[in-house]
């Protein structure tokens, strides 16, 4: 058992776990929102490591970049370099196709999840939390940060933005006081200082709403 309270987390892993119900191992988010949210989180990781910026929905890649350490980041970056014609909504939709799988594999490698075969023929692969409380802790931690208005990293700010954008607010803040909602508004205003993150998060919300209007799931 690792000491999960202090485990440093990457943004996308953290968001995925917040979107997961640790006890049932079922996602709290519908598939589209989960895919988009995790994709945005992965892109935010690239933003925060200075590989890309987002300007007017276009992806700008830093000219003198080193190849990212993670394979998934390197793949994303080379895809964006290869086809610069696409705008942010396209990239989010594209990465959303694989984002959840990437993060699940990452979490398996970190021994946060393991794979179980379920169903009649054991044909259904399910990702199961090693420690349900560790999963729940990710949400509790964010709720506490909001309550104390103690946001110290862009990563945490991004996660809070994505929680709001995907509609997870009530899941995370189920126990929140009225003041906490006020805090949330104050916290989100800081996103204006980081236009790339702001763009990612609002675009996630837009794409989820667009799916409702175009009747796609």
């Amino acid at each position, binding site marked *: 058992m690792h000491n999960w309270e202090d485990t440093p987390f990457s943004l996308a892993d953290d968001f995925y776990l917040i979107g997961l119900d640790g006890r049932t191992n079922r996602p709290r988010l519908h598939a589209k929102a989960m895919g988009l949210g995790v994709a945005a989180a992965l892109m935010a990781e690239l933003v925060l490591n200075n590989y890309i910026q987002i300007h007017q929905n276009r992806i700008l890649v830093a000219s003198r970049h080193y190849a990212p350490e993670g394979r998934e980041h390197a793949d994303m970056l080379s895809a964006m370099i290869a*086809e610069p014609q696409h705008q942010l909504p*396209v990239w989010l939709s594209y990465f959303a196709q694989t984002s959840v799988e990437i993060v699940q594999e990452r979490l398996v490698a970190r021994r946060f999840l393991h794979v179980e075969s379920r169903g009649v023929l054991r044909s259904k692969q399910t990702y199961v939390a090693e420690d349900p409380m560790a999963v729940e802790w990710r949400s509790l931690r964010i709720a506490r940060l909001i309550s104390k208005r103690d946001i110290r990293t862009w990563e945490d700010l991004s996660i809070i933005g994505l929680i709001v954008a995907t509609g997870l607010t009530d899941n995370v803040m189920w126990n929140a006081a009225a003041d906490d909602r006020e805090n949330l508004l104050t916290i989100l205003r800081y996103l204006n200082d980081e236009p790339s993150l702001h763009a990612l998060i609002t675009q996630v919300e837009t794409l989820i709403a667009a799916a409702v209007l175009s009747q796609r799931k």
Partner: protein
Amino acid sequence: MPPSVNSPSVVSASLAKDRLGVMAVIMFAMTAATPLLVVGALVVTAWGNTQVVGMPLAFVLIGIVLAIFSAGYVAMARHVVNAGAFYSYIALGANKSLGVGASFVAVLAYNMLQIGLYGLFGVVAQDLFQQHFSWDVKWYVYALVAWAVVALMGALRVDINSKVLGILLLAEIVVVVIFDVADLGHPLGGNVSLAAFQPNHLFVTGVGAAFAVAITAFTGFEAAPVFSEEARHARRTVPAATYLAIAVMGVVYAVTSWAITVAVGADNVVARAQQDGPDLIFNVAGKFLGNASTILDIGHVLLLTSIFAGMVSYHNAVARYTFSLGREGVLPRVLGHTRARTGAPLIASILQTIVALVVIVVFAVAGWDPLFRLFFWLGTTGGFGILTLLIGTSLSVLNFFRINHRDETMWSRLIAPILAVAGLGYVLYETLLGFANLLGVPSHDPVRWIMPGLYLAVAVVGVLWALTLKSGKPDVYDGIGLGATAGTAVAAMTVASATGVPTQTSGTHSRDYEDPTYTQRDR
């Protein structure tokens, strides 16, 4: 060096797999056709109520007008986001205040179309279960059961599978064709009479009522542009699906209603409709099909499933409209929320559910007639609302292409919309003139003004509300008509560039792309 625009894009190819194919869009548009509901219930009630025999001709004429309307409609769909909603066209083509007025009209109209169906469902189910199981249950019990199921499906975002809808539609068409063949094979007096297509059977007092009924029958043809951004080859698929839906509806509705007049005689059809009600189509064909009562039972069940599918579809339409208005901040923002687990526009869905419940309960308590008052009044008045939106949309299309033609043909952007406004304007005039006839009330009854007047009232409220927003919340006002993209600064530019291609191509030229040399920050 970035690849040229023409090189195959891995990203686009991968995303294209998720897009809707041609058949899927066509199937979706086609499921708006409900032959048994329209001919079995709507037309028969119209014959009984308005005494206008020439419904078959009305379907042909309205079908032509709607096809002309669609030329401009699908052309503009290529240039707007939220292309599934009439008010977006009006907000972007005419002006935002009128757009809000139109959105309120649309919400009222689709609500009326949806809620009216509960009356019909109740009556048809009551008859069916009475006949087969001798159940003595009031219409509103069946209506409330349907209501509860629709409410659940809306809240959980459960859709009826489009393949199921397609199979039901196919079955319906098979049944209707069998009925038609039976009817036309046994014409009254031995001759197949085309009387129902003669203008003198349509252009009588109450022609407006017949037109309103026909517009109501075609409602749903407008749905395909919802997929403007989701379909493969949308430029061709969406128009094809729209025209095909209109053509199939027009032919099936016109032929089936004509076949009934052939079998019972054009002069007797009003009396028979008053006598038999929604059973007319089944009774007439049943006589010729001998003891093949199975097909009549199948027909009745298909009528019920068809009504139910209509309820779900209109419920979702209302929920999407209110969700969209919530997103834009025109209505309370809580309406624009989706549920995390399902992605359902939960609050918007629940709101429509509550409105429907209130109306059903009022009708049940007051003991009003579920067929004439609930189904026919609300249904046709709903159709009238759609008619006003069609005219508003055509005018907006004209204005939208007035300065910038956006590479659309003169037919699509100018001639067709003008013809549509003229045709639909005439229909509107006649319908207003004959509204008392439509509702089956005396010409001095205030209800004839109250029902169409409701639209004027909500439109005025909408425009005034928009003007309040304009001065009080200009950012909200700017987002009107933008649907999902409203409220985000990056997406404020909704209208695609002159090429008419959606936004993702605007960065295609390599000169537009530059590697930034921004300073690496310390964190």
